[in-house]
């Protein structure tokens, strides 16, 4: 009992500490270290892209973007993305419906399978298609005989890009649709809606932000994929070069002008990354606000 009195009660100072906070010195020290890490590893590299891109002036910047090979790389990237992203979005919706709305054996295994392309090295993702469609591949002779080009051509690059971006939309939609449950769908079905109507008018509106979120991330990866695409592309300028491959080609050219041009082309992808982050933050802010509003109205009605 004597021990208690030797410990003074520091009422006013202890109040702000709550016993579970660090001293202000430690707190600001930790904040500064964290911000330093973010500054060196995240902010500086991003700023450097734009700084280097405009190194030879704004005229040179736009000139290097207008080069025919660069323009064709931009076009190819857009074509691949416009096919790969909708395919994976459609897959994501189907997979999320099957996984989130039903109970079945092996569900965990199926989710792991959907995640598999994230775990595989991009290089391996490209290689598996060479094994099938390359000159020495399973279908190599047959494709050669029929003059069909898959490797070192658009179809191979499309397959590789689609492979590495398979999980994005499904991963966002599955937890969301699981959390939403099936009550609303059951109600719609009871009222006479068919499956498509239920999906279109009930499921889709309640999970559309998750869908958009997944599509945004899928799009960023599809446009920026390098490893898998480089294995199957052959990087023929003006033909099978995407934007990231164009950056690589320019970077490895000997001239310093090409070096600056590689940053100019890279700045397009950096802009895409910034845009992705802005949309992502906006969607997260929206979801948070909707959640807070729902909680408030719940507590009001209670």
């Amino acid at each position, binding site marked *: 009992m004597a021990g208690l009195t030797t410990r003074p009660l520091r009422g006013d100072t202890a109040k702000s500490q709550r016993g579970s906070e660090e001293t202000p010195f430690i707190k600001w020290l930790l*904040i500064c270290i964290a911000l330093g890490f973010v500054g060196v590893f995240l902010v500086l590299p991003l700023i450097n892209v734009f700084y280097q891109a405009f190194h030879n002036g704004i005229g040179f910047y736009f000139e290097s973007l207008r080069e025919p090979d660069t323009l064709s790389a931009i076009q190819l990237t857009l074509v691949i993305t416009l096919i790969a992203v909708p395919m994976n979005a459609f897959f994501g919706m*189907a997979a999320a419906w099957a996984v989130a709305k039903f*109970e079945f054996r092996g569900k965990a295994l199926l989710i792991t399978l959907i995640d598999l392309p994230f775990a595989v090295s991009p290089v391996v993702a490209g290689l598996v298609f060479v094994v099938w469609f390359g000159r020495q591949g399973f279908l190599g002779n047959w494709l050669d005989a029929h003059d069909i080009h898959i490797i070192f051509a658009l179809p191979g690059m499309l397959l590789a890009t689609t492979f590495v971006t398979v999980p994005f939309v499904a991963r966002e939609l599955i937890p969301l649709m699981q959390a939403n449950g099936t009550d609303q769908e059951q109600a719609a079905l009871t009222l006479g809606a068919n499956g498509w109507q239920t999906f279109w008018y009930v499921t889709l509106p309640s999970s559309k932000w998750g869908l958009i979120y997944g599509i945004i991330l899928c799009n960023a990866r599809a446009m920026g994929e390098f490893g898998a695409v480089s294995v199957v592309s052959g990087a023929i300028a003006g033909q099978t070069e995407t934007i990231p491959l164009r950056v690589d080609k320019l970077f490895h050219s000997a001239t310093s002008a090409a070096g600056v041009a590689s940053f100019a082309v890279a700045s397009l992808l*950096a802009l895409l990354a910034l845009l992705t*982050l802005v949309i992502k933050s906006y969607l997260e802010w929206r979801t948070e606000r909707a959640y807070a509003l729902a909680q408030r109205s719940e507590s009001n009605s209670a």
Partner: protein
Amino acid sequence: MSQHFNAMPGFRRTMGFTLFYLGVLVLLPIGGMIFKVFQLSWGDFWAHATTPRALAAYRLSFGASFLAAFVNAIFGTLLAWVLVRYSFPGKRFVDALVDIPFALPTAVAGLTLANLFSPNGWLGQFLVPLGIKGAYSQLAVVLALIFVSLPFVVRTLQPVLEQMEREVEEAAATLGASRFRTFISVVAPSLLPAVLTGFVLSFARALGEYGSVIFISSNMQYKTEIAPLLIVSLLEQFEYSAAMSIAVVLLVISILLLAAINLLERWVSHFHR
């Protein structure tokens, strides 16, 4: 849960499409490569997969990925802690920045990091005179891998920290524990599963990384050549069997890591119920 009777339509159709899509696009291609490698004799496979050059590449890939994941485990934990526990101006902005490595294509990351750490770069001009070669060296590989795997620990830890009950820490403080003691004996143990999950996620991502590393590394055999790059080099020399053998080694490791991540995630959600 209506497990016995589910009136929801479309199971067969969506499940059928899901399995078809995954089968054609993911399983069949991967299976084809494994089938091809199985046609090699065990001796051939082993010879291809364990050449001195391959062993050097694995060593670098594993070592650099481990270091990168370790650095991210420490700084990622710190960053998650700061973002969840403290308030400071620009916090939301910093939180959004953490996703840069997910959004920025790896080729761009490698390009700009190589420039930053080169002798004329913003960081290299100070570091290179000190003997720190952050570009075209083994350190360069680690730096690129830190960048690409940076968000995993932060993003795994944030929700766990948010859900943690601070009453436990207050109780520890009430019982006379110092803040440091409380952190070591109360906070750290409950964060460990999530940190470990983030660490393995980082490691798995770093191990497969290709794009950023080839820009910043000098890509020299036995020295700065990572395993994915070795696969590409062998492929360019039409050494298909050797390329596939090493690819299968990486693939098996990826699948094992994926399984480990699943187990860890289950552990984390069990821990925080």
